[in-house]
C-alpha cells in the first residue's frame, strides 16, 4: 500500500519531449487510470514509475520514498503487461512463482501464495500447463496472478486487456475491479480505451502530448470537462462538436449554427456568458442529450432542430442516428424503436441545459 507522488517529471526520447513536467498524486489504495490517445505519454509515465525508463527531471515518490535512482526490483511494485509476458518455458505455477523465487521466498510460502492467487483467479486447474496451452484470457489471469502473489505496494497495468476480444475484455474488466476491491492496493492502469477508464477508475488522469489535460473522478470528467479534447475523448459515441456563434437575443443568449438554426440557452446556462456573445464558439452536445421531439418528455429548456436521418446504427438497446446539422455530421442516441428508416425527417429535442460551449481559439470549455 502506498501513495504515489510525482512532481515536475520530465522525460525525453532524443528530441521528443515525452513528459513535460508532470505533477500527480495517486492516493493510497486508489485506482488511477491514465488514459489518452496514443503518443500522449501514458505508457511512458507508467514505465517511468516502474523504473523501466529513467526520468530526465523531477521526482517520483512511492510510499513516501524517493525512487528516482532505484532499480525496478527495489521499488516493490508488480506489473502486468499488454502481451502477458509469460515465460513460455515455465509452467503456470512456475510463472506465478517466478517473482517470489527471485526474492528468495521459501517454497512452502510460495505454494500457499500461488494456490491462493490461482483460486482467486479461477486458474487452479491450470497450474501444471504451459502458457502456449492457455487461451488469451487464461494467460492474462496468470499474468495477474503473478502480480498478486508478490503482495507489492503498487500495481501497474499496461493496457492489459487490449489483446483480448470484446466479450473477454468486459469480463476481465470486472475481475480487475473486483480484485482492487479485495486487495485494496494502489493501482495504476494505462489504457487508450475510454470505457475501461470510465468503468475502472476512482480517478481518471487524461493525458495529452505529455501533459495532464484534466484529472478527476470519471463522472467529473464526463460531465464537467475542462476542454473540448476531454469532452470528445470520453463518452461513446463521442460528443458532437458543431461550429456556431453565440448571440444575444432580447434578454436571452442563443447559439446560432452556421446553417442558421437558433438554439436558445436556458437562463441558468446563459449566466456568465455575456462576454462571449457575438463570438465564434464550438457547440458541444452529447448524443444522449438529443432525443426525438414528441416522444417521451423532452426536458424543459430544450430546443428544437429538424434534420434528415442519414445513417442509422441500431445496437439493440439504443440506436445511433446520424444527421447533418450545422454543416457537420451529428449523432443522436435514440430509443431503439424511435427510428427505422433512413432518409426520414426528424424533429430533435436538444437538451440545452447539458450542452457545452467551447472557445475554439483555446479549446477551453466556457
Amino acid at each position, binding site marked *: 500500500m502506498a501513495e504515489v507522488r510525482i512532481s515536475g517529471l520530465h522525460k525525453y526520447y532524443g528530441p521528443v519531449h515525452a513528459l513535460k513536467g508532470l505533477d500527480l498524486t495517486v492516493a493510497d489504495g486508489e485506482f488511477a487510470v491514465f488514459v489518452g490517445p496514443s503518443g500522449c505519454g501514458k505508457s511512458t509515465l507508467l514505465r517511468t514509475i516502474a523504473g*523501466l525508463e529513467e526520468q530526465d527531471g523531477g521526482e517520483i515518490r512511492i510510499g513516501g520514498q524517493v525512487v528516482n535512482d532505484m*532499480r525496478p526490483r527495489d*521499488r516493490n*511494485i508488480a506489473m502486468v503487461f499488454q502481451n502477458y509476458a509469460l515465460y513460455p518455458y515455465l509452467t503456470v505455477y512456475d510463472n506465478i512463482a517466478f*517473482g517470489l523465487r527471485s526474492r528468495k521466498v521459501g517454497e512452502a510460502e510460495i505454494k500457499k501464495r500461488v494456490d491462493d492467487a490461482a483460486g482467486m483467479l479461477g486458474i487452479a486447474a491450470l497450474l501444471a500447463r504451459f502458457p502456449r496451452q492457455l487461451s488469451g484470457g487464461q494467460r492474462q489471469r496468470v499474468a495477474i496472478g503473478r502480480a498478486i502473489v508478490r503482495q507489492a505496494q503498487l500495481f501497474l497495468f499496461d493496457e492489459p486487456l487490449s489483446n483480448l476480444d470484446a466479450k473477454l475484455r468486459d469480463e476481465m474488466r470486472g475481475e480487475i475491479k473486483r480484485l482492487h476491491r479485495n486487495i485494496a492496493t494502489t493501482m495504476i492502469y494505462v489504457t487508450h480505451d475510454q470505457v475501461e477508464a470510465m468503468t475502472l477508475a476512482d480517478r481518471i488522469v487524461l493525458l495529452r502530448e505529455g501533459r495532464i489535460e484534466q484529472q478527476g473522478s470519471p463522472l467529473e470528467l464526463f460531465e464537467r470537462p475542462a476542454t473540448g479534447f476531454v469532452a470528445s475523448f470520453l463518452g461513446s459515441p463521442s460528443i458532437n462538436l458543431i461550429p456556431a456563434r453565440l448571440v444575444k437575443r432580447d434578454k436571452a443568449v442563443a447559439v446560432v449554427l452556421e446553417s442558421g438554426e437558433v438554439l436558445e440557452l436556458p437562463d441558468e446556462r446563459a449566466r456568465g456568458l455575456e462576454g462571449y456573445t457575438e463570438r465564434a464558439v464550438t457547440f458541444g452536445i452529447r448524443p444522449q442529450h438529443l432525443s426525438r421531439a414528441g416522444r417521451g418528455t423532452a426536458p424543459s429548456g430544450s430546443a428544437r432542430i429538424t434534420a434528415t436521418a442519414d445513417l442509422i446504427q441500431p445496437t439493440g438497446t439504443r440506436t445511433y442516428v446520424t444527421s447533418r446539422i450545422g454543416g457537420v455530421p451529428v449523432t443522436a442516441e435514440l430509443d431503439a424503436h424511435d427510428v427505422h428508416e433512413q432518409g426520414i425527417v426528424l424533429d430533435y429535442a436538444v437538451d440545452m441545459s447539458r450542452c457545452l460551449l467551447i472557445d475554439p481559439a483555446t479549446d477551453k470549455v466556457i
Partner: protein
Amino acid sequence: MRAAGTRHKRGKLVLRLAVATVVTLMFLFPVYWLFMISFKTPDEIFHAPPLWVPGKIQFSNYWVLFKDGDVIAIWNSLVVAGISSAMAMLLGTFCAYSLARFNTGGENLAMWIISQRMIPPIAVVFPIFLIYVYFGMVDTYAGLILLYTAFNLPYVIWMMRGYIVDIPLELEESALVDGCTRWQTFWRVVFPMARSGLMATAVFTFVFAWNDFLFALILTRTEVITFPVMLTHYFGGQSNFWSKIAAMSVLGTIPIFVAVTLMQRYLVRGISLGAVKG
C-alpha cells in the same frame, strides 16, 4: 477422371521418391566409401574391381593410429575447438546482449563486427604468424584457442544478436520488476529463451574450429597438431597411406556427427529462427 487423377498423383510421388533416393545415395556414397576403406586391408583397398565391402571388418588401421600416438591430433582438436567455442559463445552472447538491448555502439557496430568475419583468413595469417612467433604462442593450445575464439566472436555476436532481438522485451522487463537483477534476467530469461539459437550457433562455431586447416597448419608444429593437419602427413611424396587417411578421417568425423545428432532438435529450430529474421 478420378482414377486418372489418383494415378497422376501416385506417379508424381514415385518420381519424387526416386529423385530423393538417388540424391541421398550420391551424398552418402563418399561417406560409406570412407568408412569401408578404414576397415579394409591395403590389398583390399587397391583391389580391382573395387570391393563394396571388406572381406572382414578389422580395426588394424585404427590400431596403428593409436599405437603411433597419432590420435592425439583428435584430442588436440577437441581441446582447441571445444574451449574456443565455449569462450566465443560466452563472450559473444554477452556482447550480443549489449548490442541488442543497450544499443551499444549505435547502429553500425554490429555490421562492423560481422565485417571482420569477411576478411579472407589467408590475408591475415602471416601477420598473425609473426605476432605469434614474437609472443611465443606458436604451437600452443592457448595460441589456437585465442585465434579461434577471436575468429568465431563476430559470428557469434551477429547470430546471437538476432536471436536476442527476437525475445520480447516485456519478458525481461517483467523479470526486472519482479525482482531480478540484470544478471539474473540474463540467466533466467534471455538464456532459456535463446537456447535454440545458442545451441545452433555453438555447433557452427565448433565446426568452424574443428575444420580449420589454414591457421592450424601455420601455427602448429609438433605439440598441438590438429586433426586436419595430421591428415596431411599421410600424403607422402611416393605413396599415400590410404588406410590411415581413411581411419583418421572417420575419427575426425565422429565428433561432428555426435554434436549435430545431440543438437539436432535445436539446430533445426535455431537455423529456421534465424532464417525468418535474417
